[in-house]
């Protein structure tokens, strides 16, 4: 590629990066400013005269906030684990075994990608009330697992079709059970795809406000996004605290992302280059 073309490509990529990162950048810089500075010059980085940690003090002073983080973390991690486990198992069944209705079953699972789970909110709430799961983390974990599984099956079954049949058959001849073939031969080979699914699954869960608000709004089960809402009032909003809470909320998901990132890049480019 000519240097000019490369230059244009980089320009486009940088423009996109700026657009994508700008809101995050704005949130983070403003979280370190005092209230007046946020409104007077929202685009300015914190200066010694405007620097303030009041937002963080408010958030961390609220004793429950650590607890909210813990709730978010438990829900996200548990849901990812369940989505990966059940998604991978279903994907294996769909890609590996020929049975009546295989294609229909695959389609049925994929419908979940197209129909937003929020359409079923009322029914889900009724179900949770009936089973006594309202205001528990279990309720959230179950809903998020259901929400994440369709995409997981869709992505993982494609990858599992790519795993050599010969390898699985060699395992069968060596006397490995179907479970051993799944856990010991197939899963390690689709690890990059698993990381991709994990990232795509965890971000919407972590950011979700809807289901925590409806299914688990109690003090004991509040998640970070829901917890931040206490600073947003009908008439007065504590912007320092809101921005600080959001900045803090980025951290754990960033850590999880870095853990998966190395695998993720291999997953996204798999098949593109041999």
């Amino acid at each position, binding site marked *: 590629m000519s240097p000019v073309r490369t230059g244009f490509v980089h320009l486009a990529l940088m423009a996109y990066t700026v657009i994508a990162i700008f809101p995050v950048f704005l949130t983070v810089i403003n979280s370190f400013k005092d209230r007046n500075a946020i409104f007077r010059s929202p685009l300015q980085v914190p200066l010694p005269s405007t620097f303030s940690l009041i937002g963080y003090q408010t958030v961390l002073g609220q004793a429950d906030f650590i607890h909210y983080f813990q709730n978010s973390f438990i829900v996200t991690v548990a849901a990812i684990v369940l989505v990966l486990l059940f998604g991978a198992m279903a994907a294996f069944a769909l890609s590996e075994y020929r049975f009546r209705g295989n294609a229909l079953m695959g389609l049925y699972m994929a419908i979940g990608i197209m129909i937003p789970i929020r359409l079923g909110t009322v029914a889900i709430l009724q179900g949770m009330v009936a089973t006594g799961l309202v205001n528990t983390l279990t309720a959230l974990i179950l809903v998020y697992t259901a929400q994440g599984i369709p995409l997981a099956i869709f992505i993982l079954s494609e990858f599992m079709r790519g795993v*050599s049949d*010969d*390898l699985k*058959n*060699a*395992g*069968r*001849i*060596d*006397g*490995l059970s179907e479970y051993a073939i799944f856990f*010991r*031969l197939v899963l*390690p*080979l689709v690890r990059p795809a698993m990381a991709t699914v994990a990232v795509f699954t965890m971000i919407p869960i972590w950011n979700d406000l809807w289901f925590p608000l409806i299914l688990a709004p109690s003090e004991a089960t509040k998640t970070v996004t829901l917890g931040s809402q206490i600073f947003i009032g009908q008439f007065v909003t504590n912007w320092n605290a809101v921005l600080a809470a959001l900045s803090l909320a980025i951290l754990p998901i960033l850590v999880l992302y870095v853990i998966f990132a190395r695998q993720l890049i291999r997953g996204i480019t798999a098949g593109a280059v041999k």
Partner: protein
Amino acid sequence: MGSLQLKSIRKAFGDHEVLKGIDLEVNDGEFVIFVGPSGCGKSTLLRVIAGLEDATSGSVRIDGAEVINTPPAKRGIAMVFQSYALYPHLTVKDNMGLGLKQAGTDKAQIEARVAKASGMLSLDPYLARRPAELSGGQRQRVAIGRAIVREPKLFLFDEPLSNLDAALRVQTRLEIAGLHRRLKATMIYVTHDQVEAMTLADKIVVLNAGAVEQIGSPMDLYNKPANLFVAGFIGSPQMNFISSERLPELAQTGVKTIGIRPEHIALSRESGEWKSKVINAEHLGADTILYLETEVTGLLTVRLFGEHRYTADDIVFATPDRTSLHRFDANDRAML
């Protein structure tokens, strides 16, 4: 220890019948090769024997015992795959030992058998490596080692040499032949390469479109092909087929096609039966392969032994060896 009987094996995927009733007897210690073009069902048949694919109907007996409902691991077989199919996360040693470990064999015996197999295949320096650190030829030797370690009644090979380059293919072919002599084990081998079939087999099974065309020793198939398909499939370059209408003097009643192997045609610059023009000449050193356009028979392939100085556009005369003709009737069956 290791005989095999197949009785009217059928296999259908939906409406598509891949195997149309295969009967076969394999005796203890035989090296049997399934050969045929792609899609003829040879790999499916091997998978049915291995138990990786369920037959729609029919019976598979190993050492006289019906195994159609026995899982692959309990059939006393070992299989070598085209893609090697080594476990990527295990070392060479663990790859070879896994089958025995699953079967609950004690450690000392696994060690001994792995050591024996790795010695046989000169794999000793690589035992601690993982498959990714091995070359293609070494990987295939590990796959063969994994089969040997199991001490199976039947060895199954599914196109084991197809992924290797030409030089390595010849070398590995020799190793497999040597292995068969040493182990005296029953081996069933699938290939689409008739050279492999001719060089390795005690008995060749030629398959086409899900049915057996002919079973016999390599020389039987070469000298007495039962039909047009086998005649065309075995032997390289391919046999020349000439419609009997073009050669009324060689045809008897009922003959539709006459077959002449390229090596059974003599060539001369001065005189002969069929005047021809050389279209292309391939000089291979030991052989010279000529493609001729003849007036009487159309396109003709001729194989001469040794070096000959023919070039394209030369005018030559071809004469068939009348004692080596093959005659086929209207149903493509060989006539005696």
